[in-house]
């Protein structure tokens, strides 16, 4: 127990500081993950892109050059194409992302995950993806949706492999 007013005062200040630091930092300052007029888009799906190079049938001459146990009639380079995704809001760029297929030979399915914010309100959201090497720079999959996005809404964009199309939830 404090024996004097000074001791009491110092102990009071010390415990008050201890109290105050925990009181405040245990829940403040508030962290604004989204602004009041924002919604969030998450791209999340697993996708295997096409091979970067087409398979080609080996000629007899090519086969003869290979060791006998490696003479497979087709040559299929394992490396797969980069996956390029664009998000557009009302036909204007919102974000782009490129995903490299994982694995030593870059031949595995990529886990696509990215998140973006967009302004709440009625907007057209477009997502398009290129998953093969294309000289024309076009896209292989495109999905558009026009909706009223509400603040704090979480929009999940997946990909249905069975239908080969995006799913916007």
């Amino acid at each position, binding site marked *: 127990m404090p024996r004097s007013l000074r001791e009491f005062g110092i102990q009071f200040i010390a415990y008050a500081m201890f109290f105050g630091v*925990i009181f405040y930092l*245990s829940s403040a300052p*508030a*962290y604004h993950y989204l602004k009041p007029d924002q919604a969030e888009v998450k791209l*999340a799906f697993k996708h295997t892109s096409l091979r970067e190079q087409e398979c080609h049938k080996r000629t007899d001459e090519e086969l003869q050059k290979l060791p006998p146990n490696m003479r497979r009639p087709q040559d299929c380079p394992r490396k797969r194409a980069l996956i390029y995704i664009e998000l557009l809001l009302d036909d204007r760029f919102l974000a782009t992302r490129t995903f490299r297929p994982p694995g030593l030979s870059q031949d595995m399915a990529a886990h696509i995950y990215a998140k973006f914010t967009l302004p709440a309100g009625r907007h057209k959201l477009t997502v398009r993806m290129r998953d093969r090497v294309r000289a024309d720079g076009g896209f292989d999959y495109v999905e558009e949706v026009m909706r009223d996005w509400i*603040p*704090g809404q*979480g*929009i999940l964009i997946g990909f249905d492999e069975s239908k080969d199309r995006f799913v916007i939830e």
Partner: protein
Amino acid sequence: MDAVRKFCNSLILSVELWFNKGFSNRINPFYHLGSLTFFFFWIVLVSGIYVFIFFETSVAGAYPSVEYMTHDQWWLAGIMRSLHRYASDAAVISIFLHMFREFFRDHHRGVRWFSWITGVPTLWLVVILGITGYWLVWDQLAQYVALATAEMVDWIPLIPSAMVFNFLDNQITDRFFTLMAFLHLLGLPVALVFLLWTHVSRISQIDFNPPRPLATGAFLTLLLLSLLKPAVSHAPVQAGHSPMVLNLDWFYLNIYPLVDVLGPGWAWSISTGVTLLLLMLPWLPAKKEKPSAEVNLEHCSGCGQCARDCPYGSISMRRRTDGKKAEFEPTVNPTLCTACGICSGSCVSSNPFRMANTTLKTGIEMPWFPVDTLRREVKSRLEALSGERRVMLFGCEHGVDVTTMGSGEVAVISLPCSGMLPPSMIDFVLKNGADGVLVSGCRDGDCYHRFGNTWTEMRLAGEREPNLLKRVERARVEEFRVSDSAGEREALNQRLEAFRRSLPPSA
């Protein structure tokens, strides 16, 4: 690095001096940060056990069960939940203060590196334990934390990236939830206990409990906090909704905004970078310890006092190997010895009246500062003294630097620790021309070598072997324990003068 540490040390000494005025040296919280952390862990454990009784480990049941505790049984389960959270926060405060203090007070280098190194993974474990606790509530904050954690884990190249998919659109399963509950309730606490045991394994005679007034004050503060600001959950997880405003517990969840702003790569880089820096600190720069204590078996009675007094557990007793009648002999582990010299002061053979005409050999002593050297220095300093009130001032290297305080009437000798002074040396000094002896140690409650002050005080009071003989006139012996900060140096000067004036004339 040394300059920064010394500057911060002087700052922390000033703050602690202020706390000493309010709490007294005995219960100054800065001197009990380790035991306070253990105390907070006890609160966390007890409150956690109570909360677990009502907690349901399933995705659908977790949130309602926590809400029941918070609102329906607020008077006990709610308070326990709040105590659980706030004691965890308090533990982070005491851990970080403890870490900074040990660094600034230079307790982290030399043979003490082990305690420092084993403390670093403890930080990670405590933070992970806290984070998993927030997951269990399964509110919007938990969902945010789970997603951000998964983003961090998925960033690690060696781990196939799929974890984040578990938390999207509320796809989490009960099984995964049970795993988290297991980690928080059993796995991580057991690992923490093991790490803490390792952390303190090289320190002897640990006081795990803070002084009762301090524990009471800290507990009442947390209880008041729990009553005034009960811990509450965020809104429940809602499919298709992202959290907008989160009331983060910044003691545990501070990494996540960093993940959002800079990305998981930077968050990993910063946290691992800080961890690596902490792990390297004992060698930035390394501290060169003096040679460790040496045992001279032919002068050792095997009493074991040195082993009992060693603050670092570096001395152990084993069966006698030299065929003498005594049953045991001490053995020194050099990797644990800080060369403080306390063992030398505790040895009954460190008696300067022995072997008066030859080199004094003692049972255990420091090879770089044997008791014989101390005796010769005492004699030569005493011979140089003159005046009516001649005082021998024994200082401590970690308290006030006494080497510049000598004068015609004051002789000074600095020791690595005041505990190195054998009580019989005081008798010897008084018999060889001094009128008084002043022993200056580290600041009370903050002995650099843990027990130097305590053992000296007990030896002089006749409460611990070896005792100061009763024939020594107590009025001629004074103790004063202060740190080497400017104000306290002056206090030692004043105490020295007052002591000299108070001395009875010598016979």
